[in-house]
């Protein structure tokens, strides 16, 4: 039943006979490693792991995400982080001190912000922070949403894909781990950026994608000028 010859695995597929190699997306039963997910199996640093093809974002401390304010409660903003769990941004986690009655001046319901996950406890209470130079409220630009599992593909190996997009499109692009992407630039550049991002999401599992996206951008830009 060894299915490592094919790259796509389904839950329950046997991946390895050595329990020491069990990585992410796997489980061990009777000294054998099985897949826990429907995804792609790969070896990485002597470990076998399975990268999912779909799934929800589960917050981890240190992740940078794009959040939308859902509600304001006593000294906290409740933030939708595109996950089964909502995030809490405390008033003290803003870079400067603000009063409680002024909360909605900075972040209103519906406001978008770049936020970092500070801590997640065992009851899945997600604490967020904005106390970093690179974080902040997003007042310009647009936000796109893709599946969180496609985020690594959008960034590419060593950031190859995202850097190419930024350069070719003259846009500032930020990819949140939760699958929300913030794009800022000129209107027609942003249009093209969002369209390109959706293509990358749809074709994330195909070969030679970076080159094809490059060609696509070239054609689109020629048509524009």
């Amino acid at each position, binding site marked *: 039943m060894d299915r490592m010859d094919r790259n796509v695995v389904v*839950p*329950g*597929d046997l991946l390895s006979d050595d329990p020491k190699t069990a990585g992410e997306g796997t489980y061990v039963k009777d000294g054998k490693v099985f897949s826990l997910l429907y995804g792609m199996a790969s070896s990485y640093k002597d470990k076998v792991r399975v990268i999912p093809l779909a799934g*929800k974002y589960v917050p981890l401390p240190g992740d*940078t995400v794009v959040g939308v304010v859902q509600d304001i409660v006593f000294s906290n903003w409740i933030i939708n982080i595109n996950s*089964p769990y909502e995030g809490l941004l405390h008033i003290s986690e803003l870079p400067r001190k603000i009063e409680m009655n002024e909360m909605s001046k900075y972040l209103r319901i519906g406001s978008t912000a770049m936020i970092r996950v500070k801590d997640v406890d065992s009851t899945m209470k997600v604490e967020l922070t904005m106390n970093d130079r690179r974080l902040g409220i997003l007042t310009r630009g647009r936000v796109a949403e893709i599946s969180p599992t496609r985020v690594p*593909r959008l*960034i590419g190996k060593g950031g190859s894909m995202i850097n190419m997009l930024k350069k070719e499109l003259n846009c500032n692009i930020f990819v949140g781990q939760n699958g929300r992407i913030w794009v800022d630039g000129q209107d027609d550049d942003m249009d093209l950026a969002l369209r390109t991002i959706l293509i990358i999401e749809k074709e994330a*599992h195909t*070969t030679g994608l970076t080159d094809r996206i490059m060609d696509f951008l070239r054609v689109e830009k020629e048509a524009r000028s």
Partner: protein
Amino acid sequence: MIGMDEKLSFFKDGVRLDGRRSDELRPIKIEVGVLARADGSCYMEMGDNRVIAAVYGPREVHPRHLQEVTRAIVRYRYNMASFSVEERKRPGPDRRSNEVSKVSREALEPVVLTSYFPKSVVDIFVEVLQADAGTRTAGINAASVALADAGIPMKSLISSCAAGKVDGEIVLDPMKIEDNLGEADVPIAMTPGGDITLLQMDGRLTKDELKRAVDLAKAGCRQIYEIQRKVLVDRYSHMEPEICDEAVAMAGEEI
């Protein structure tokens, strides 16, 4: 329609009324990802059964009091469309669909890793568009594929099928006429490893007959499992293996 009192033969020239051998399944067709709004979905045909399964989640639990602190809950709704049977079915849940929902949920729950998503819910909806005996097994098969499609962590897929008894003989995957006029119906669900998660019996069987029925249904489940697996694998047949190596750690670092 054939009356109950008439002596009816379920076999003609050694094969069943639809031309199958006694250990043969009806033709199966599976399509994955048929619904854009659902997190995972699957359309399945088992003979003349047509079902569609949609999976949502893990997501926030509403109403809140159903929430479990240490694990995700699983909800399963089996529903028959009013046009799915010959005589119009009164829409809405009834005694039968409540029971089918419960046993189907219990057939799938053992393989779902609910502890990965505390305080959340995985919702499974199964709609029967056309019924021809064995809709619960078709629903479980479709739901299992839809769960995988939604990226829910599971120990394995679940496959399900029924065995029945007609004319004193044990047959696999009874169709409507065999189910309605036959002597027994035994639906089961199991993991590819052979663990049974659903076992029901309607009708009368001897101990030996039940054993044979379960063995036959198990063999059917194994065939279904291979189809389920193939459909999922073929969906992404041309993969780029190199991208999934280091990229994960990179996300979020780009501003």
